[in-house]
């Protein structure tokens, strides 16, 4: 595929252009090669169409059919039945509600706590800071299989938490089997992975704010709370909007491996979320139509949310140029 991109004439005459790279010269030089940019972009676009956009269209198509994923079995057209069925499913309502709980909780770990921590630790500088930052980023790099394994061990009935709790005379409940606790254990585990990342992103955002603004405000007699509200937060808003959008779009995906490894959505659907549901519909129940219909609904829903955020981004962001 890349061969096609090779330029036809490696040794082109030098005198072709007008000498200096002025605008007219540039335009003249680009015209005879007008196919070139397309050839460079082509591999990426092809893959994108093949593995993202065409599948997206197919999912939309499949959402109107009944099919069990077996190549040999027929697809039957059922119109909008799948949508009606999906919307009526109690699992879907639980999953939606859980997704909202997950996202709300992750805002704590990716936004609220990072801002607080980054604010409180701003006065630590130099090597110490680099050292701590190196440590708090570690969970982000731990593979989901290992994350699940070690937390299952930490929270096991003979595990570290149980040992500590026993000193206070408290019995360790089986957190992954308790419908009220399981979701919180997943939240803490994924939160553990996200927190350090959030802190570093917020810290980088702080670092990008020129100190002169606060200095000037301080000279004008503004207190530190006022400086934070009126100067720091607005200048930080691009970072915060980015983190929010990322939390909403990715929370469900970050939880997927942990849910799959630790609870499989149970007990009694208490930890499932919409993405885990898509997997279960498609690859456990082999109900392609239902999975696709649900997928289309979520895609549209998240698309709307993302669009709102991008708009917010444009309006709220103050760039420090």
């Amino acid at each position, binding site marked *: 595929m890349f061969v096609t991109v090779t330029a036809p004439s490696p040794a082109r005459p030098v005198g072709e252009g007008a000498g200096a790279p002025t605008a007219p010269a540039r335009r003249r030089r680009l015209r005879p090669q007008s196919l070139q940019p397309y050839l460079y972009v082509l591999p990426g676009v092809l*893959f994108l169409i093949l593995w993202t956009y065409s599948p997206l269209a197919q999912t939309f198509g499949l959402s109107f059919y009944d099919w069990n994923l077996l190549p040999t079995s027929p697809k039957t057209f059922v119109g909008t039945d799948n949508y009606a069925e999906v919307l009526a499913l109690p699992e879907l309502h639980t999953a939606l509600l859980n997704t909202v709980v997950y996202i709300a909780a992750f805002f704590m770990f990716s936004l609220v706590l990072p801002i607080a921590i980054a604010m409180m630790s701003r006065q*630590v500088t130099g090597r110490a800071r*680099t050292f701590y930052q190196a440590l708090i*980023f570690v969970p982000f*790099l731990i*593979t989901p299989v290992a994350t699940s394994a*070690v937390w299952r061990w930490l929270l096991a009935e003979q595990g570290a938490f149980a040992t500590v709790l026993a000193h206070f005379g408290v019995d360790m409940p089986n957190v992954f089997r308790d419908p009220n606790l399981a979701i919180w254990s997943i939240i803490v585990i994924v939160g553990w992975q996200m*927190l350090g990342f959030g802190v570093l992103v917020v810290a980088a955002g702080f670092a*990008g704010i020129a100190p002169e603004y606060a200095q000037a405000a301080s000279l004008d007699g503004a207190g*530190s709370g006022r400086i934070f509200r009126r100067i720091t937060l607005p200048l930080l808003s691009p970072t915060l909007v980015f983190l929010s959008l990322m939390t909403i779009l990715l929370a469900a995906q970050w939880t997927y491996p942990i849910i799959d490894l630790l609870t499989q959505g149970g007990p009694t659907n208490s930890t499932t979320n919409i993405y885990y549901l898509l997997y279960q519909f498609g690859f456990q129940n082999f109900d392609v139509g239902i999975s696709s219909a649900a997928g289309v609904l979520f895609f549209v829903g998240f698309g709307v949310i993302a669009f709102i955020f991008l708009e917010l981004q444009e309006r709220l962001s103050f760039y420090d140029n």
Partner: protein
Amino acid sequence: MSFVTVTTPALAAAPRPSAARRQGEEDVAVASRSRVGTVVGRLVLVLLAVFSVFPVYWMFATALRAPENALDQTLLPWPLSLENFAYVWDTIPIGSMLVNTFVMALTLATAQLLIAVLAAYGFAVWNFVGRKLLMFLFIGSWLVPFQVTMIPNYVLVSQMGLLGTIGGVVVPQLAGAFAVLLMVQHMRAFPRELIEAAHLDGRSSWATLWSVVVPNMRPALAALGIMAFISAWNEYLWPTLIMRQSDALLQVGVRSFLSAEGNNWGATMAAAGLACVPVLLIYIFLQRYVVDAFVRSGLK
């Protein structure tokens, strides 16, 4: 889906020159540094660091205990023993799993870099009809959750006869829209004069790309490569779908080992620890670049 596939190119404006240096100035300038503030800050960081690192430490500590001490809760594992690792080594083909996963991640990182460099060069150097639309295709693709397209992708992979193979894991991710978007931003910052000078010297655009642009963008390429490698290494959903009953890839093999070994915590921790070692090694040696790559790409 990896963590990094979502970035907002719209956020490009935030200026971010060498965070560390700026941080120093800023602290001196903004707050009249108080001793109390420094102590509180340090305490917060210490607590956070302990919270972050303890589970990882505990994983390796448990793995290094002798099997008969597996349930010990002492902070330091003693006597140290490699028996758990030996057990894992004998029970599952973890050596070949490590090699396969390494090859898989390296292939993906290389392919994504290559495709990203080509596409970004096209986008950054030329202004062509349809440029905006094609850019939008890349930007829009990170709004398509992988779970929404996974069934058609699965069908396509199975039609290609790649089900259960590493090839099947690799093909859908060969082009990373994220890598392209990030590369476009780096490429835009590349001085146009150099490209034009190379052109006036009679070089083709292809030769210019490889002899002028790429050598000058090594830091950006390295950062992107590291990030792509780590993301591919930690990929979970797609490999477990494609390689259902296989011990060829780490995430899949270790997962089935974990469910088979149940409460054999020493062995479980050893297997889980081994699955993290390569990434942790990369992190230990390239810590700054790794953090920078992930954090900055998130913002830029």
